[in-house]
């Protein structure tokens, strides 16, 4: 699926956190990866291996200790170039769903009225119709995740960084949202870097899957998925899918041994 030069390239990125008591925590070591235009790439790895840290670096929230992050859209490391969806939904509790969704336009100084109109027009496809004025605490967990995703999509960036967007949801809601995310992505023409613990989720959604090692995290496997699109649920039952899943699990388990 990846054609032409990548929209995102990390070369030799490391990140250490200073810890009290001298010894620093090495969260990431020498991570290199690429995401192509309109490519859907997943990042899987054990808990604490530095996946969220990596997204935070790409989003410009922190500086890498070492290495370079290149973003093709406007090539410097300042925040605001990529659309970042953090691990927690972080909907602001004092804002209605619509005001949360349009936070990006407000912060970026864009046309607020236009952003609101666009947000309203997207509510139905995000399954949030009729909830424009609802405060976050009145929404279900799945609705909150979709609202956070709507906020991310409305940033209208070429790169979406999604940090375990479906991590806290039940299996049924999760399956429904996965299908729905693929649909959205196909219309969006954006590249996605998707963090998850779930190897099946990663395979079913992605063009490529990166497997990380335990902390300090680095890339141990770059697995092209190559399953045809559009994908149906039935793909999960095929031998090709099973073989890919086995490779991912082997990589993850070999690392824990």
């Amino acid at each position: 699926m990846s054609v032409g030069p990548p929209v995102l390239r990390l070369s030799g990125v490391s990140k250490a956190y200073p810890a009290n008591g001298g010894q620093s925590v090495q969260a990431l070591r020498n991570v290199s990866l690429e995401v192509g235009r309109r490519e859907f790439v997943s990042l899987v790895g054990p808990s604490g291996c530095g996946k969220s840290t990596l997204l935070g670096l790409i989003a410009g929230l922190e500086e890498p200790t070492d290495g370079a992050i290149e973003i093709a859209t406007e090539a410097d490391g300042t925040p605001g170039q990529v659309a970042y969806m953090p691990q927690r939904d972080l909907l602001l509790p004092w804002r209605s769903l619509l005001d949360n969704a349009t936070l990006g336009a407000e912060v970026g100084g864009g046309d607020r009225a236009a952003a609101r109109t666009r947000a309203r027009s997207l509510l139905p496809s995000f399954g949030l119709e009729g909830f424009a004025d609802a405060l976050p605490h009145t929404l279900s967990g799945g609705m909150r995740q979709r609202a956070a995703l709507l906020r991310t999509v409305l940033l209208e960036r070429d790169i979406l960084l999604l940090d375990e967007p479906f991590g806290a949801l039940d299996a049924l809601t999760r399956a429904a949202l996965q299908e729905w995310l693929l649909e959205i992505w196909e219309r969006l023409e954006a590249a996605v870097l998707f963090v998850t613990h779930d190897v099946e989720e990663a395979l079913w959604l992605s063009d490529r899957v990166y497997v990380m090692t335990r902390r300090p995290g680095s890339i141990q496997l770059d697995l092209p998925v190559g399953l045809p699109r559009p994908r149906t649920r039935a793909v999960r039952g095929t031998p090709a899918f099973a073989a890919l899943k086995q490779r991912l699990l082997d990589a993850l388990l070999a690392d824990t041994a």
Partner: protein
Amino acid sequence: MNTHRVARIAPALGVLAVLVGAWELVTRLAAVPEWLLPSPTVIVVEFVESLPQLAPHTGRTLLEAAIGYAAALLLAFAVAALIDQSGLARRALSPLLVTSQTIPIFALAPLLAIWFGFGITPKILIVALACFFPIAVSLAGGLRNADPDMQALVRSMGGSRRQVFSKVKLPSAIPSLLSGMKIAATYSVIAAVIGEWVGASQGLGLYMLRASSSFQTARVFAVIAVIAVLSVALFLAVDVVGRWIAPWIYVRTEEAQT
């Protein structure tokens, strides 16, 4: 929910009724002289009779309390924002703010009278001083405790420091600010009254002082009752305004109570 609330305060009201009843009974049975301890009914009668004089004094005291409170609120906002935005200001002012709470502000009333005379100014100042600290401390704390992930979210969108402050920190601080404002509201009336004790031409403090020096004990009690009711009313007013401007705050606590 309303009946729920009535049910919650009913026991407290019951205790209050028993206490007032016992007071009435003791003063009557033991024939306590009125100048020493008037019975509740005598106090109520006195209250009704002195209402024409009480009203303007109450108005004056409320005016002092309101102006002082507003001044305290503005100053507290400025200081808390400064502490939040500048590391130097935080290191310079935070320890002072915390320790200053142990200074008995009301003891400054005579000094303020020496410096500013017996007009309305020293009363406003004492109210402002008394109200400033709880508001500033609670607001600064609320700003400091704003969710760092929410702040990071706004930064990831390219938000400036000012946007992080206005879109995340300030709204996050509202619950804490409101609790400081409630404490300050209860301080405001008594601060004005103490300011008036030192010397005034009008106000509940003056009216109370005159009544006590002529042994009109029932009138003293009536004024105390007015002060108490005003303090509670202002506290509730802040609470109501808070529920109106920040309805999301009360969701979690009310869920937790059921």
